[in-house]
């Protein structure tokens, strides 16, 4: 690794030094293509974020693709009902690597105000690996922009080698997650234990 002081000194002289990893991640982070995909009112804020007033294009994430085959970011914007959850997982499976998930809003994180309903999934993290979660009901467009900047930070700092390398550089890991089936009262299984386990809480 090059010394940061030397790097900045060289930059002042008009010489730009970088590593392949930084260059690779710089390109990846500034071209995130989200999936055109809304489930509830959070999607309205997502639309607002991509339009002129908030202008998601400033962060290189304005190319909303209507097909999962061309997208690499899934913004789960809204309430995930139990009827919709298998389709969300299937859409995620159809996206090519590298792919990321933003859980937008209280419902996508935990079920939100509908948590105790009979037909609402208590958080998409029970089936999918969520990279960034945005609280809010619904979150403001600025919050979504912040989430995308957080995701870019995450991508920029991802090592291209080692155990935490992105999945598309790891042949042993496939990015497919089991699609839950419709059961008599709930989804089968009700959660993917490999992705989500109930956190152990200390109670008084």
């Amino acid at each position: 690794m090059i010394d940061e002081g030397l790097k900045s000194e060289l930059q002042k002289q008009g010489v730009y030094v970088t590593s392949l990893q930084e260059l690779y991640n710089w390109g990846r982070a500034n071209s995130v293509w989200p999936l055109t995909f809304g489930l509830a009112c959070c999607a309205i804020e997502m639309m607002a974020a991509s339009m002129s007033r908030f202008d998601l294009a400033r962060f290189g994430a304005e190319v909303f693709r209507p097909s999962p085959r061309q997208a690499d970011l899934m913004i789960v914007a809204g309430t995930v009902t139990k009827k919709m959850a298998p389709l969300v997982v299937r859409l995620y499976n159809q996206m090519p690597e590298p792919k990321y998930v933003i859980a937008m809003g209280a419902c996508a994180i935990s079920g939100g105000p509908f948590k105790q309903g009979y037909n609402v999934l208590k958080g998409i993290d029970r089936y999918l690996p969520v990279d960034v979660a945005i609280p809010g009901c619904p979150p403001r467009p600025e919050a979504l922009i912040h989430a995308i900047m957080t995701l870019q930070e995450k991508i920029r700092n991802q090592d291209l080698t080692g155990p935490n390398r992105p999945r598309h550089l790891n042949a042993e890991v496939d990015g497919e997650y089991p699609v839950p089936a419709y059961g008599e009262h709930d989804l089968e299984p009700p959660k993917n234990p490999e992705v989500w386990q109930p956190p152990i809480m200390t109670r008084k």
Partner: protein
Amino acid sequence: METLEQIKARIEAALPSAKIDIVANECPAGERSLLVDAANGFLIAKFLRDDAQLKLDYCSNVTGVDWPDKELTEKTRVKQVVDGVEKEVEEVNKTIRPGYLEVVYHLYSMALKHGPVVLRLRTENRADQTHLPSLTPLWRGAEFQEREVYDLYGVIFDGHPDLRRILMWDEFVGFPMRRDYIAPDDFEYEPTPHDEVLVEAKKHYPVEPKAEVKV
């Protein structure tokens, strides 16, 4: 528009076998409704739609209501002779009113600009006799709403062209909006439980080892 009493009288004149009650309403709006028997329900609805003075051509809303079994207590004062002295004693009679499912239709007239006339139909019980006539052949707009009532309450509409679940998935068993529906137990992670959720979440709490008492 005519009063409900006038409408009731005219329906009974046209359809002598119809059994109609006027259901009172104690809320400030006082919107009363017509309770009609299921057997004549379709013909009564057809009369309301086609009658020249009513022309109720628009069904704006279909609602399902679940009425579980209800215990009615009736207090009566009875004079009894106790130990040679006459006393007034309260007697409590308890009866159980069997439950039923109810479907409420709100009818308006676009042609004559009046309404609503509220129509209620009740099933025999909540278990096996949950059939009611479908009014979709009269008002096409009732199709999806009757499907929803079927999906969530289990009312079976005879004569409906396409009676399937609409909100829940096809494999779903049971009717989730009924008062006695038991939702799946998925309370394993409740960060801020309270009330009923706290009761459910406590079943998932780890059993704490009791502190040993030293003697």
